[in-house]
C-alpha cells in the first residue's frame, strides 16, 4: 500500500533529528565509552608477511611483563571456537579471528595480548616473538584467478571462491543481430568506507547467568547469533547491546572476528575484555576493505546507441578470506542493467582470494562499482556513435510508462520516472549555461568536462543473492520488527532491535508511528532493547530501514490504532465502522460530541477488563515482524529471482576542471537529482545523499588501499589514505522528485546509499569529457593527480589521439 498524493502530517516535514541532541553535547555512547570494572585490554600481534607459515609463537617474554594477563594464539582459539561463517559454499576456506598455522596477508592477526592497559598490551605485543617461514603469495586479482597462482587456501585448491555465469535472455542472438559492439575493461580500485571510529568491542562473561554481554560498534545482520555459533554458545547466551552508538559504518563494521576473540577471552580469563582497534590495526588487519574489481563489459547496440544486450564479467579480489563479501557480486544482479532497457544479459561473477586484507560489505554492497562499469559502457557507446551522451541515455532509460519493469535477471523495478528527474536537473543547472561555462573554462586553458551518471539505488534489501550464489543456503526471510507499547499513563514507547550509526532510526520510527496515530512524534519514546529482548532484525544494511523499520512500525501502529478503535467502539456501544479515530481520540461518527479520549481508552485497556470487547488481551502492546515486500521466493533454475523491492533513482551532473599542468581536478559545480519516493525526514535524506557523494568523491579521486610488490599495504594510516576534508567537497545542489513505491507504507524507498552510487560514475564521466580533446580516456578509479598529469603531458608531447589507460 502507499499514500501517493496524500499530504502527510509528519512524514516529509522538516523535523529535527532527535538523536542529534545527545551528540551535540558529547553524550553519544560509543563502544569505547562503555566502562565496566576490571576491564582488560587487547593489542594484536600481526604477521608482517603477505603469506607465511607460523612456525612458533614465543610468549614467555611478553607474559613476564607486569600487567600482562594473557597471550592467545590461533591454535588455542581455533580449538575452542567454530570458524566464522562464510557466505559461499567454500568449506575449505576457513576464517578465524587469529591465524592458525598459516598467515595469509600482511597485517593478519596472529596473537592477542591481554593486559591491564592498552599501552602495556602494545608493549607486550612487541615482545611476542613469532617465527615465520614466508610462502609464495599473489596480490593481483587476475593473477590469483590463474590456475598456476599460489593458492591462498591450499586445501581449497585454487583462489577461485566463485565463478558462475548467468545468462538471462537471448544474449548470443541479440549480439548477432546488433550492428555494433564494443568492449572495454574498467577497474574499480580498492577503497572502503573507513569510518572515523574504528571497530571497538567490549565483552563480559557472567558465568553464573551464563550470559555474554557484548558492547560493540557493529552493523551486521545476525551478529548475536554468529557470535554465539562461533563461541559454541546457545543464542540466548549472547546479549548484544543495541543502544551503543556506532561512529559510522557504511557497511564495514562487521567485527565478527573481534567479537569472537574478546568473547573467548572474557570467558577464559574471567574479566571483561575490550578491543579497540587502533588505526594501524584497523587499516591493515581490521578486515574492512572494499571491492577491488575488474569489469570486462561488452555491449551490443544499434546505430542510435540503443543497447540491446550486455555481457559483463566482474572479477573481485576479496582478499585472503571471505565472509559475506563475495555476495557483493550477487546483489547487483538485482539491478544488473541499471536504469536501462537492456534486453538480455550475460553476467559472470568471479570472486578470488589473494594475499591482501579481507574485504567487507561496503555501502551499497557492490552496486556502486557496477554502476560505474555500466555508465562507462554507456558513454563509450555514445562516443562510438558520435552521439550526445545525454541523448543516448534518454534513449536507453526505462520510461515512466513501463513500470513495473522486469529486468532480465528476474527483478521487477517498482516505480520511477527517470526522464523527469533528468529534465529537472538539467533545468536547475541551466544546461546550456553549464556547457557555456565548460567552454569558457576550456578557453582559459583548463581541461574542463561535464560529467553525468544515471543509476539506481536498490533498496529494502533481500538476501536472495545468498541462495543465488550458494544453493545450499535457502534463506528467503529478511525481516525487520517493531514493538509499540502504550503504558498505563498513556505514554507511547517503541523499540528498535538493532544498532544505528547515524541514520536517524529513532526519528524515523517515531515519525512513522506518529503519522499513523496522529500524535506528535516527539511524544514517542524510542528504546533499543538488547538482543535477548529483541524481535528479529537484519540490521541497517541494503538501504532497508526506511522501508522495513518504517513498515514494521507502521503496521504495529495500525494494530494499536485498530485496538483503540475497537475498545472505544465497544465502550460506546457502536459498530467499529462508526467510530472515527482522530488525533488519538475516538468519536462516534453520528454523534461527534460523544467519544472516548486517549486517556480513557488506555485506562480501559489496562485497568477495566469488564469494559473490554470479548476475547481482547488487556494492555496495549503490539508487535509486527515485517517480511521484505516482494520477497520470499527462491531463485529459478536459471538464476532469476526478485531481489530488492524498491528502486530509487539518481542523476548526477558535474562540471569539472583539470589543471593541465598539474593534473589536479576541481569540481566546479555539482547537481544531483534524487528520487527516493516519499521522503520520511528531509534532513536525514539530504545528509545521506551529501555524505554519499563525499564518499564517492573520495573513492574517485583520493582514496586507495595501494599495495607494493612485497604485499605491504602502503596506505596504513591517514597520512596516506586520504579522506576528503571540507576543502575537497564542493557545494551540492539536490533536486528532488518523488515517485512513490507501491510496495511501502508511505511510498518511501531507501536512501542510505544515495550519492555514493552515482558519484564515481559521474566524476569519471567528467574527467573523460575533459580529456576528450586530447584523445585520452581513463577507465580506472581512483584517478590520481600525478597519473592525470603524466597522461596529459604524454599526450601533449606525442599528440597521439586515442591513447587509453
Amino acid at each position: 500500500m502507499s499514500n501517493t498524493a496524500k499530504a502527510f502530517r509528519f512524514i516529509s516535514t522538516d523535523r529535527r533529528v532527535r538523536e542529534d541532541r545527545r551528540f551535540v553535547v558529547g553524550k553519544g555512547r560509543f563502544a569505547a565509552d562503555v566502562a565496566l570494572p576490571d576491564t582488560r585490554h587487547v593489542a594484536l600481534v600481526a604477521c608482517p608477511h603477505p603469506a607465511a607459515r607460523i612456525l612458533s609463537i614465543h610468549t614467555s617474554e611478553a607474559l613476564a611483563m607486569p600487567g600482562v594477563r594473557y597471550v592467545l594464539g590461533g591454535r588455542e582459539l581455533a580449538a575452542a571456537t567454530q570458524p566464522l561463517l562464510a557466505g559461499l559454499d567454500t568449506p575449505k576456506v576457513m576464517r578465524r579471528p587469529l591465524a592458525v598455522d598459516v598467515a595469509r596477508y600482511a597485517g593478519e592477526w596472529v596473537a592477542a595480548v591481554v593486559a591491564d592497559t592498552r599501552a602495556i598490551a602494545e608493549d607486550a605485543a612487541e615482545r611476542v616473538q613469532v617465527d615465520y617461514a614466508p610462502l609464495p603469495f599473489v596480490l593481483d586479482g587476475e593473477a590469483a584467478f590463474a590456475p598456476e597462482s599460489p593458492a591462498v587456501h591450499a586445501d581449497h585448491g585454487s583462489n577461485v571462491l566463485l565463478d558462475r555465469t548467468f545468462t538471462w535472455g537471448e544474449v548470443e542472438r541479440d549480439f548477432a543481430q546488433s550492428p555494433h559492439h564494443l568492449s572495454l575493461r574498467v577497474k574499480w580500485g580498492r577503497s572502503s568506507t573507513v569510518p572515523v571510529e574504528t571497530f571497538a568491542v567490549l565483552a563480559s562473561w557472567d558465568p553464573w547467568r551464563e550470559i555474554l554481554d557484548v558492547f560493540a560498534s557493529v552493523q551486521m545482520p545476525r551478529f548475536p547469533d554468529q557470535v554465539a555459533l562461533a563461541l559454541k554458545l546457545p543464542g540466548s547466551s549472547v546479549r548484544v547491546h543495541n543502544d551503543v552508538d556506532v561512529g559510522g559504518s557504511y557497511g564495514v563494521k562487521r567485527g565478527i572476528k573481534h567479537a569472537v576473540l574478546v568473547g573467548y577471552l572474557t570467558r577464559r580469563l574471567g574479566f571483561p575484555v575490550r578491543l579497540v582497534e587502533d588505526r594501524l590495526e584497523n587499516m591493515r588487519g581490521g578486515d574492512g576493505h572494499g571491492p577491488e574489481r575488474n569489469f570486462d563489459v561488452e555491449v551490443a547496440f544499434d546505430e542510435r546507441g540503443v543497447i540491446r544486450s550486455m555481457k559483463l564479467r566482474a572479477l573481485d579480489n576479496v582478499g585472503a578470506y571471505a565472509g559475506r563479501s563475495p555476495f557483493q557480486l550477487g546483489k547487483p544482479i538485482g539491478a544488473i542493467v541499471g536504469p536501462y532497457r537492456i534486453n538480455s544479459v550475460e553476467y559472470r561473477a568471479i570472486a578470488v582470494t589473494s594475499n591482501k586484507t579481507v574485504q567487507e560489505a561496503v555501502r551499497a554492497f557492490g552496486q556502486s562499482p557496477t554502476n560505474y562499469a555500466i555508465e562507462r559502457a554507456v558513454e563509450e557507446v555514445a562516443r562510438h556513435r558520435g552521439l550526445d551522451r545525454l541523448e543516448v541515455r534518454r534513449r536507453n532509460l526505462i520510461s515512466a510508462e513501463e513500470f513495473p519493469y522486469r529486468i532480465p535477471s528476474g527483478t521487477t523495478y517498482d516505480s520511477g520516472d527517470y526522464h523527469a528527474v533528468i529534465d529537472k536537473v538539467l533545468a536547475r543547472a541551466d544546461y546550456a549555461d553549464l556547457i557555456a561555462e565548460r567552454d569558457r573554462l576550456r578557453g582559459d586553458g583548463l581541461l574542463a568536462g561535464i560529467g553525468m551518471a544515471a543509476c539506481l539505488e536498490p533498496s529494502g534489501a533481500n538476501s536472495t543473492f545468498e541462495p543465488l550464489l550458494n544453493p545450499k543456503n535457502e534463506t528467503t526471510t529478511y525481516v525487520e520488527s517493531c514493538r509499540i507499547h502504550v503504558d498505563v499513563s498513556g505514554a507511547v514507547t517503541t523499540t528498535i532491535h538493532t544498532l544505528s550509526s547515524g541514520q536517524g532510526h529513532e526519528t524515523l520510527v517515531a515519525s512513522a508511528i506518529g503519522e499513523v496515530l496522529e500524535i506528535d512524534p516527539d511524544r514517542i519514546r524510542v528504546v533499543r532493547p538488547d538482543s535477548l529482548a529483541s524481535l528479529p532484525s537484519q540490521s541497517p544494511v541494503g538501504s532497508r530501514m526506511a522501508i522495513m523499520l518504517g513498515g514494521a512500525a507502521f503496521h504495529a501502529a495500525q494494530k494499536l490504532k485498530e485496538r483503540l478503535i475497537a475498545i472505544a467502539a465497544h465502550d460506546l456501544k457502536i459498530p467499529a465502522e462508526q467510530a472515527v479515530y482522530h488525533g488519538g481520540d475516538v468519536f462516534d461518527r453520528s454523534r461527534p460530541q460523544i467519544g472516548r479520549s486517549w486517556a480513557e481508552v488506555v485506562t480501559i485497556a489496562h485497568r477495566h477488563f469488564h469494559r473490554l470487547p470479548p476475547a481482547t488481551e488487556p494492555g496495549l502492546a503490539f508487535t509486527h515482524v515485517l517480511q521484505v515486500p516482494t520477497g520470499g521466493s527462491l531463485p529459478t533454475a536459471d538464476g532469476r529471482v526478485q531481489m530488492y523491492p524498491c528502486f530509487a533513482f539518481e542523476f548526477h551532473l558535474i562540471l569539472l576542471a583539470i589543471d593541465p599542468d598539474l593534473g589536479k581536478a576541481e569540481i566546479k559545480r555539482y547537481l544531483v537529482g534524487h528520487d527516493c519516493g516519499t521522503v520520511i525526514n528531509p534532513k536525514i535524506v539530504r545528509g545521506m545523499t551529501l555524505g554519499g557523494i563525499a564518499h564517492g568523491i573520495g573513492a574517485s579521486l583520493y582514496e586507495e588501499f595501494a599495495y607494493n610488490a612485497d604485499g605491504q599495504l602502503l596506505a596504513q594510516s591517514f597520512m596516506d589514505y586520504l579522506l576528503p576534508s571540507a576543502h575537497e567537497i564542493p557545494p551540492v545542489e539536490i533536486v528532488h522528485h518523488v515517485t512513490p513505491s507501491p510496495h511501502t507504507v508511505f511510498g518511501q524507498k531507501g536512501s542510505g546509499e544515495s550519492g555514493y552510487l552515482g558519484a564515481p560514475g559521474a566524476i569519471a564521466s567528467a574527467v573523460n569529457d575533459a580529456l576528450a580533446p586530447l584523445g585520452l580516456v581513463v577507465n580506472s578509479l581512483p584517478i590520481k593527480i600525478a597519473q592525470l598529469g603524466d597522461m596529459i603531458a604524454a599526450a601533449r608531447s606525442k599528440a597521439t589521439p586515442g591513447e587509453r589507460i
Partner: protein
Amino acid sequence: MKPAPFKYARPASLDAACAMLAQGDDARLIAGGQTLVPLMAMRLARPKRLIDIGRLAELAFVRREDDAVAIGATTKQCVLEHDPLVRSQVPLLAKAMPFVGHAPIRARGTFGGSLANADPAAEIALVAVTLGATIVYRDGSELIAVSAAEFFTGPMTTVLPPSACLTCARFPVWREARLGVGFHEINARRSDFAFASAAAQIALDEDGTCARLALGIGAITPVPRRLDALGEMLKGKRMEEKRLRAAIAAALADIDPLSDLHASADYRRRAAATLLFRAITDAYQTAQPHARHAS
C-alpha cells in the same frame, strides 16, 4: 597506538635542557610535538626521555637582529602566521605559513620543530633554504651556526647531533623597496604534504627589472633546493614568459626528482616547472601592484 614508555622532564631553562641532553641517554626534545608525537604513537621513534622545551620563553621570539629577523625555535607556527615583523620583513615566510598543516597543528607546532623534523615537503624548511637563512643550534655550551642549505642533509635528517638543541634561525632582510613573494604547492588535499612546492621572493628595481631573486623547490628532492643559477639567470631581466619558462626548464634539467606512491619523478619535474613559474609570476606581480601581467 600508544608510545613506548619514557621519562618526561620540563627544564626551566635552555641551560638545563642542554645539560639534560648532554647526559646522552636516548633523550629527545619535544616542543609542539606535532611531528614527534605521531612518530612515537607509531613507535617509529622511541626516546627513553622527553625533554619538553615547549614553554621556554627564552626560545620564543621574533625580533630584528641587525639585518636579519631572528625567530626562536619554540615560536609557535600560529604566531609566525600573524606576526607583523615577519609579514613586513620576511614576507616569503608569512606567505608560506598558511600552507603548513592545519590551524590546530599550527596552534601547537613550533618553528624549530618543523626545521628539526626536516620533512622534504616542509614549507618552513623550503623558505629557510630559499632565503639562505642561518640556523643556529646549541650543543652543550657551544653555539653553532650553519646555512639552511647545509643544515638539511637528507629526508628527515639534519646536522643536529642528538645532544643539540636548535635555538633560532635568522632570515636575511631584503632592503629593496619593492618586494614580492610567491608560494605554490601541489598536494592531493589542501594541507597534505606536498608532492612538489616552489617559493620565490623577488626584488624589483624602479624600472621593473629583477634586481634580486631567491628561488627554491621543495618535496621534489630529498632536501629543499635553492636555485641559485636560475636566480642569477633572471637577474637584471624583465619577466617575460618564454624566457622565464626556458630558464626554469634549464635550471631543472639536472635535478633528480623523488619518485614514490604519490608521484613519479617526471611528474615532480614538470610540477616543479609549473609551480616555479607561478611562484615567480606571483612574486613579480605583487612586487609591482600597478604593473600589467608578465606576457
